[in-house]
């Protein structure tokens, strides 16, 4: 489950029309959500509030051996109009599951209406400031997001901690999204790490919208109508460490226009380390999604398999309107019932099982998780945790 501040940041991205999926970093988002979901550990309480459209606060109290907590504040220049009450928040926005990719948009066009302000052509440069102080470790996190231009996002993330070398580190990321392709440039002050990421989408180019694109014949085998094929790569280099790393990736995912069940396939390769990872996720139904991942290293012959699933529990339509919904024609667009809870599970070949149940209980959002290790017969239950969050 997303923390409230992440929820607000996601809302900022959505409202400023920044497509976070069009990035190499989010190539495997679906598999990540279905397989690598974090399991809460210990008891944790979140109390948050979006007191005004521009300002949000959140307090966290945890008991993990010692009592710890954090205070966080967020300011955004872009007024956010999202439901903030925990009873009203759409659970589908909080719990990240199978990710449906939407058709690419042309960045400039999508920003046109926002550019006009006060009758003049003034470019909006939305910004977001976020700070979080962890106690008692006195770790400070700060984030600065700024839409420099409709196609450009600057992200500065800083961590200040006495235990870190140099007392902290700063990461600067500049993202460019041109629809057809996107690039990212990174720099981390920690050991002066440089990074470049790029993603290219085959097929339809949103910058040159072709009204007949939906009906035209595919120009080449990758130009899929119901789906999108993307390829990307990343490279890092640290002149101080004289070390680096590269990886390439490929993704095919179905678009909403796809008639069958949606699915996503990815393949990532780290040629330096010989690591090969392939994932396959399928949304078998409106409430069910499966995902599998297979890792293989061609040098060490190590392999891992992980399988995960998610199951959504939705509110049943009220009995008094059941007759009406039954009369709806199948091709009519129905309002999707609000989700009540989500069950996520994963298991890997090392016998590690993770379970997570996230639901809404009255005014509270509850997240209960447990980790098991089936190979350890005497201590199978690894970690158990519960998170309770309330927001207003």
């Amino acid at each position, binding site marked *: 489950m997303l923390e409230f501040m992440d929820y607000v940041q996601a809302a900022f991205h959505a409202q400023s029309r920044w497509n976070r999926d069009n990035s*190499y*970093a989010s*190539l*495997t988002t679906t598999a990540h959500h279905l397989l690598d979901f974090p399991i809460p550990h210990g008891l944790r309480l979140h109390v948050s509030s979006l007191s005004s459209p521009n300002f949000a606060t959140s307090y966290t109290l945890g008991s993990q051996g010692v009592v710890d907590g954090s205070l966080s504040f967020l300011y955004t220049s872009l007024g956010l109009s999202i439901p903030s009450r925990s009873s009203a928040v759409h659970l589908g926005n909080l719990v990240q599951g199978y990710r449906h990719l939407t058709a690419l948009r042309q960045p400039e066009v999508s920003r046109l209406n926002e550019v006009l302000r006060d009758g003049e052509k003034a470019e909006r440069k939305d910004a977001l400031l976020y700070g979080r102080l962890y106690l008692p470790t006195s*770790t400070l*996190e700060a*984030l600065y997001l700024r839409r420099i231009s409709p196609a450009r996002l600057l992200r500065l*993330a*800083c*961590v200040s*901690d006495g235990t*870190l070398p140099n007392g*902290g*580190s*700063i*990461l600067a*990321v500049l993202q460019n999204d041109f629809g057809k392709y996107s690039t990212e440039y*990174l720099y*981390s002050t*920690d*050991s002066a*790490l440089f*990074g470049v*990421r790029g993603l290219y989408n085959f097929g339809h180019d949103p910058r040159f919208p072709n009204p007949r694109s939906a009906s035209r014949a595919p120009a080449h085998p990758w130009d899929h109508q119901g789906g999108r094929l993307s390829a*990307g790569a*990343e*490279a*890092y280099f*640290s002149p101080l*460490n004289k*070390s*680096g*790393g*590269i*990886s*390439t*990736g490929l993704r095919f995912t179905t678009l909403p226009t796809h008639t069958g069940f949606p699915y996503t396939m990815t393949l*990532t*390769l*780290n040629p*330096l*380390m*010989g*690591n090969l*990872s392939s994932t396959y996720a399928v949304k078998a139904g409106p409430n069910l999604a499966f995902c599998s991942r297979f*890792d293989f*290293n061609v*040098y*060490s012959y*190590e392999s891992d398999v992980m399988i995960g699933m998610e199951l959504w529990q939705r509110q049943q339509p009220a009995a008094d309107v059941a007759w009406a919904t039954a009369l709806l024609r199948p091709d009519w667009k129905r309002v999707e019932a609000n989700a009540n809870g989500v069950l996520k599970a994963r298991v890997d070949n090392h016998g590690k099982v993770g379970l997570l149940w996230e639901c809404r209980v009255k005014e509270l959002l509850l997240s209960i998780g447990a980790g098991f290790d089936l190979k350890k017969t005497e201590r199978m239950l690894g970690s158990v945790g519960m998170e309770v969050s309330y927001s207003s």
Partner: protein
Amino acid sequence: MAFNFNWSPLIADTDRVRDMLTSSLNKSPKPPIIVDDIIVNELNLGSTPPELEILEVGDLAEDKFRGIFKMSYTGDAYLTLKTRVQANPLNTYLSTKPSFASPQPLAASSGLTIPLQITLSDIRLSGFVILVFSKQKGITLVFRNDPLESLKVSSTFDSIPFVRDYLQKTIESQLRVLFMEDLPAIIHRLSLRMFSPEYQTAEAQEPSKDQTDERAPIDPFANPAQQPTDSFGQPLEGSAPFSLDAPTETYASFSQKNLLRLAALTESQRTLSLFTPSMRDTVYRAWASAADRNELSNGISTPLHRPTLSRIQSTHGSQSACSSSAPSQASETPSATTRPSLASFASAPTVYSLGSGAPRSRAGRKRKNRVVNLRKGKVEGDVSDVASVSSGYPESADRSATGSTAPSLEAEPPTFPGTAMREGEISTPPRSPRKKVGFQQPSDNNARLSAESGAARRPVTPRNNALAFPPEDDNDQTPRASMYLPDNRDHTPQAEPRPSRQRLTRMQTLPTRDKPPELPRSASDLSLQSLGAASFGTDGSTGGILEQAWMMKMANEIARKVAEEKGRRPPTWRGGEDDGEAPPAYVS
């Protein structure tokens, strides 16, 4: 002086060392590049022992040793480590950073773990080693400087010069830490396991027993004879770690377990329970009456313990011969432990109180009070023997101390506080060893034992006699008399009928041990008196005015001395008392 340094048995028992190394290597947080446990795959100490040059021997006794060596090693030992390392630098780099400001690469940080085997060989060491050994506390080995001179590191990545150099550098620095910090701890733990049974797990004990049984003699006394280099204390260095068993046997009786067992044993005889805890190398004797038991508890020497006691005393003697200060420390621990073991638990505190109380309570006024109390105690003692004994014990001890002080003053006023006190308290043990010897020789018919005991004692006794007898004869005797017969004596002068009864019983026990009881009552007294010139009567007649005056004087002096002593060495009152114990044994 000769050392017998056995290198070969060390080589044999590398399994445990390997386990300990493994655990110590994995104890500290590992660098993120190491993703698996470090396993010590192979450990060979080689056939070449290190060269040791003795620079200084600070303390030498049979059960303790302290010395400084100069060590140089150019042997063929080697060590093979196995672990798995993360070959992706990005992975290790990112694993230590907070995720909030990390670039979070998609797949560039995917891991590649490579099994790594490192062989350390051609180890060249030279340095100064401080070695402290004591049976109770094991071996403490400290390097005074960084002993690592050079080392050859060969690994899976030898073909890559960068990695090879890096490994060489890192491992050398790690090894330096290991030598300076971890190795002493490992050796200490190992030695603890080997020497003190408390630290031995059941499994650990098994192999050692097997090894020991082959050559370990049934009688602990026999051991010294087996170790050729045994003179006194020296054998510990070389032979102790490897042929521990014999020493372990003797000193096993001092461990907590054995104390408990002994306590159970004594308790078992007080009840109707038929259960008798089994102990190795012990002879059981049934006691006729409670008085005997009490006597025992007071007298410190049980038949079971004889071997150990005699052993201690012999070591004591040797130590005293070597250095005057040594014996006190050496005897401290064993004697402290033996006492409680002998005495029932109820009486144990009284014993301690005696030791502690005696020196402190010497202040003149208090003394008087004590005397009074003592008499009261006697009166009370009529009701129940046991109770009277226990209650009267500390008082009697004080009294004995006072009694001894008087004579000692005459002999040597200045030395009095230390020696007189000690001897007075100590006096009990001396007898026990003797008796032991007498007993065991006939009963066991063990030629070895007798020879050993004789050998152990032979050197000691003459020296002790020479040292202790001439000036301190009087002192010794008086305290002894007081100690042994505290109750008897106290009772005798005041309450004739009861004391006599008690005496009779006690007399029986005492004489049986010492000599055939011809004069039941006088046997102990007489023997004491015959030894020393100090008159038993003086002790008994503490109530006299002259005596009181003397005592007052003495008490003041003692109080002063005690205060001084306290200032000098705060915690060692027990030690002082213990010190006293050993010498009298020889004297008597």
